[in-house]
């Protein structure tokens, strides 16, 4: 089963032009805020109307501007989980979930179905509570139960963990993984958190300015992001434009140093992940001055500027283990950038 979406929508000066397909898998839409990810989900769910395009779910046409088809959200069998869960504040947890049992059904059957859903989320004992009496995690479980009980053919998750405290996120992510596995159909996950995306998604679509910039398996996207946007969104902090010097060397403009590598056609920038820098000598070795040291809970980020680079060049961040750095603690260090660590980027 699959979801095909092609959505065009103008919003002031911003224009959304999304096109992608997803099978029975988790596809993450990874992008900065305001890039149109959430709007895409809302269009698929039918609570926003595209200007044109076509949305097909499991062979059923939900929206097709050319044929004048635009199903109501009630007819789409699309489960959309809102960023802040959108629990109905005037209803108890049980009543909220019963709203998912189609047309606000009230009978015995619906109640049993809703109770089973609460039970499977481990919140049966909260059935009589009101949403404002719940913790963030409990609110999310309620929203999940309510969505799942409506028997959707696709799940759309809009920044599912952004409203949670960080200590809750990991646990809810674990539960979400379970829910996704049991659901077994198409899941679209909107997020700007690369860790979350990597842990939950099979494939990743990088979204930039309302367009899919890159769509591939998560391994491929993270190993070879391809563009500056994708590189930054996958968490790479060191990015520099390049200019060719001669056949074998390029000049890294932001870092202010020449590098020995063959960039490949069209490549105009390089990415270098902070943990991929190696101490000692090797390919592209530089003696660097330590500009700053930032202590993280379990690592150090050491900001380096090669000695040969000008003073206004952008320092390069190097993430090292705490013990390794404590052993060095120098004002100058020698590091090298392995060729495989230099990500070739276009545009």
């Amino acid at each position: 089963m699959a979801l095909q979406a092609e959505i065009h929508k103008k919003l002031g000066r911003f224009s959304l032009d999304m096109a992608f397909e997803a099978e029975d898998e988790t596809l993450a839409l990874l992008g900065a805020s305001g890039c149109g990810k959430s709007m895409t989900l809302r269009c698929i769910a039918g609570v926003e109307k595209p200007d044109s395009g076509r949305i097909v779910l499991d062979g059923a046409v939900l929206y097709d501007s050319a044929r004048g088809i635009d199903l109501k959200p009630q007819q789409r069998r699309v489960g959309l989980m809102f960023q802040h869960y959108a629990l109905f504040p005037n209803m108890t947890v049980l009543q909220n979930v019963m709203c998912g049992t189609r047309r606000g059904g009230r009978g015995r059957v619906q109640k049993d179905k809703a109770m089973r859903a609460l039970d499977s989320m481990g919140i049966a004992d909260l059935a009589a509570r009101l949403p404002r009496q719940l913790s963030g995690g409990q609110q999310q479980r309620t929203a999940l139960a309510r969505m799942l009980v409506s028997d959707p053919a696709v799940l759309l998750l809009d920044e599912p963990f952004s409203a949670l405290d960080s200590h809750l996120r990991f646990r809810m992510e674990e539960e979400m993984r379970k829910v996704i596995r049991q659901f077994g159909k198409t899941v679209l996950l909107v997020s700007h958190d690369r860790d979350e995306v990597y842990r939950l998604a099979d494939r990743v679509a990088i979204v930039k300015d309302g367009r899919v910039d890159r769509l591939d398996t998560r391994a491929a996207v993270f190993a070879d992001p391809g563009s500056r946007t994708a590189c930054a969104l996958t968490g790479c902090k060191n990015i520099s434009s390049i200019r060719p010097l001669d056949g074998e060397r390029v000049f890294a403009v932001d870092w202010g140093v020449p590098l020995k590598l063959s960039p490949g056609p069209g490549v105009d920038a390089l990415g270098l992940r902070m943990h991929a820098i190696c101490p000692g000598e090797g390919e592209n070795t530089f003696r660097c001055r330590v500009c700053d040291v930032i202590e993280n809970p379990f690592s150090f980020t050491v900001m380096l500027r090669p000695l040969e680079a000008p003073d206004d060049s952008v320092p390069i961040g190097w993430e090292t283990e705490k013990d390794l750095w404590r052993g060095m603690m120098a004002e100058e260090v020698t590091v090298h950038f392995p060729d495989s660590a230099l990500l070739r980027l276009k545009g």
Partner: protein
Amino acid sequence: MDLYPLWNSLRIAGISTVIIFFAGVPAAYYIAKAPRAVKGILDVILTLPLVLPPTVVGYLLLRALGPRRPVGAFFLEHFGLRLTMTWWSAVFATAVVIFPLMYRTCRGAFESFDESLAACGKTLGLSGAYIFWRIRMPCCRPGILAGTVLAFARALGEYGATSMIAGYTPGRTATISTTVYQLWRTNDDALAFRWVMVNIAISFAVLLVVNLMEKREKRR
């Protein structure tokens, strides 16, 4: 002490509040949803009675409803009905003056409603009617109630427009506020003071109810 003014004030305020409830809530609902340009113009027109002096409202009403004016003459001719100088004439004046209070408070409630709740209801398969009656209205209920109580409180205190359109006839059109003025004018200070106390007691009770409701709303 003749309690007619109390009874008359309460029924005028009660009837005009009921009328304004059914006019103000739908007006607020549709204007909250209206496109910006329409909203701006209608909002000014509907709020005008709030800032106009009540005597101006009274004057405009007399121009329409007076026995020799278009609407008043029509009713007099066809139904033998005088629209001014009866106890229920005051309902016209009061209704116009309290309408903006009802309308604005409700509009605020409708505008602060989280639209993602309605959108979410749709994706769950809930009908438009269910979303309106079981989700939107309950969420906006505290604001609608507050508007109703405020409108009622203001209606009890209406003087300017009422005295112009209904006048002061003891036992017929006298309300608390017109009675207080009349007693003061005729130097019956003791009785005027008693009516003032009655008025303060009612207003106090009404405002207490508003505050309690606001507190309940905050706890939601």
